[in-house]
């Protein structure tokens, strides 16, 4: 299993490095969106719940870009059959794809969060980062699990670019809720509070439930 996931992951990252289809687009999209927000809201500096909202919405939409492209190469180049013919556990593909998406999200955040701090955020990056890291990590896990499931569901349909986001956004709303609520005290000026634990718990629970659901249902999407 580990060997299979390793092989799949290696292949994913190799293809991404060759084509640079997902990560640069996601990151650029995030930075541009921050600029758009500046003009749309007519604000130079944001903090508190406004900052949390802008950050999470931007990350969410950038993530959707990555989700859309997650299985496209496999669907178009017969990669599914190649994998399905191998004597391996099919859940390995779910794990590998989710890990891939997770890595994309981490790289996205490495670009987007400093950009956000630079362009719009009131409190300094050094102060918000410790609290933010945990929230982002939990949010990323949920997005990875749900994003992979939804991407697999949408990729072999006719309107895949449309259905992917339509399916993913409602399912990701609780993560946005949890992430934004947890980030709000972290991103506030003045006293530096940590993220409230009940929201971290909610995020964790959501991640766990949908991780398990994705694991249970993924095989049904691959087979014919």
């Amino acid at each position: 299993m580990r060997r299979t996931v390793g092989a799949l992951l290696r292949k994913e990252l190799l293809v991404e490095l060759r084509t640079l289809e997902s990560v640069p687009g996601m990151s650029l999209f995030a930075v541009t969106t921050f600029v758009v927000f500046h003009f749309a809201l007519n604000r130079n500096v944001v903090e508190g719940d406004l900052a949390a909202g802008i950050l999470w919405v931007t990350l969410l939409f950038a993530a959707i870009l990555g989700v859309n492209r997650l299985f496209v190469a496999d669907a178009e180049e017969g990669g599914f059959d190649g994998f399905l013919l191998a004597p391996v556990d099919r859940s390995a593909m779910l794990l590998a794809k989710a890990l891939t998406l997770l890595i994309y999200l981490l790289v996205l955040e490495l670009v987007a969060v400093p950009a956000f701090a630079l362009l719009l955020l009131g409190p300094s990056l050094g102060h918000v980062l410790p609290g933010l890291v945990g929230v982002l990590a939990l949010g990323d896990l949920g997005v990875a699990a749900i994003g992979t499931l939804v991407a697999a569901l949408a990729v072999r349909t006719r309107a895949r670019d449309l259905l992917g986001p339509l399916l993913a956004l409602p399912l990701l709303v609780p993560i946005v809720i949890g992430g934004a609520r947890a980030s709000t005290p972290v991103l506030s000026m003045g006293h530096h509070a940590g993220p409230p634990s009940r929201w971290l718990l909610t995020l964790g629970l959501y991640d766990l439930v949908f991780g398990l659901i994705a694991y249970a249902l993924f095989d049904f999407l691959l087979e014919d």
Partner: protein
Amino acid sequence: MYGKGLRALSISTAAVMTAALGLVFFYAPLEAEQGFLQKIFYVHVPLAIVSLCGFVAGGIMAIQHLRTRDPAWDMRSYVAIHMSLIFGVGTLITGSIWAKGSWGHWWVWNEPTLVSFLIVFLLYATYQPLRFAIEDPERQARYASVFAITAGAFVPLNFIAVRMSTAYVHPRVLGATSNLPGPMALTFVVALAGIALLYTTLFRYELTAKHARAQLRALRRRLAGDDALVSVSRRGRSAAPTTLHPAAMMTARGAGRDGL
């Protein structure tokens, strides 16, 4: 098999709904703050409850479909979700009317039930487009089941998340069903029973209609030969599943004996 008991079900539904209407208009007391408009609560909340239960039921039926591979379960799952969507529209409309009457706005964000319902509705609204976008009927049914299970699990979790996020400052206007006085509680329960029966009846009706249509297709196919294109006078394409198990095609003769 499908058509049995429809008449009894319809009659009892009509009876209970009439009783409920009677109770709502003549028995339940007028609520102090909101007056007559509050009575829409007896329609809105049962619609919401039945609709959500229908979504979750659709998810459970989808689990059965994936476990047994029997297309009949997929048909049931589709009809359950379809019905719940319709009842869901009713929920949103009645909720909106109530909000307008109580708060002066057509939509309020401080009512977590309504808000989480909107999100659930937006999710399930993609169910039919999803089915529509997959040509292969077997894969369509399988993918739809995966969706139904995921969405079914989402319903309670989403409700919890939204509930937690709603500011506790505003009093919950629409929600408080726990401490209803006697007459209101009775009216509510009867209204709930009426809506639940209505759902069940409509569910059975639609399932019977779809089953009949599928058998008609199967019979036409047997007459026309296997390669013929069979249509059963439907305008355009539909997202609904149209076939039962192919084994049913062989037993189309048998169905005549069972009696539809």
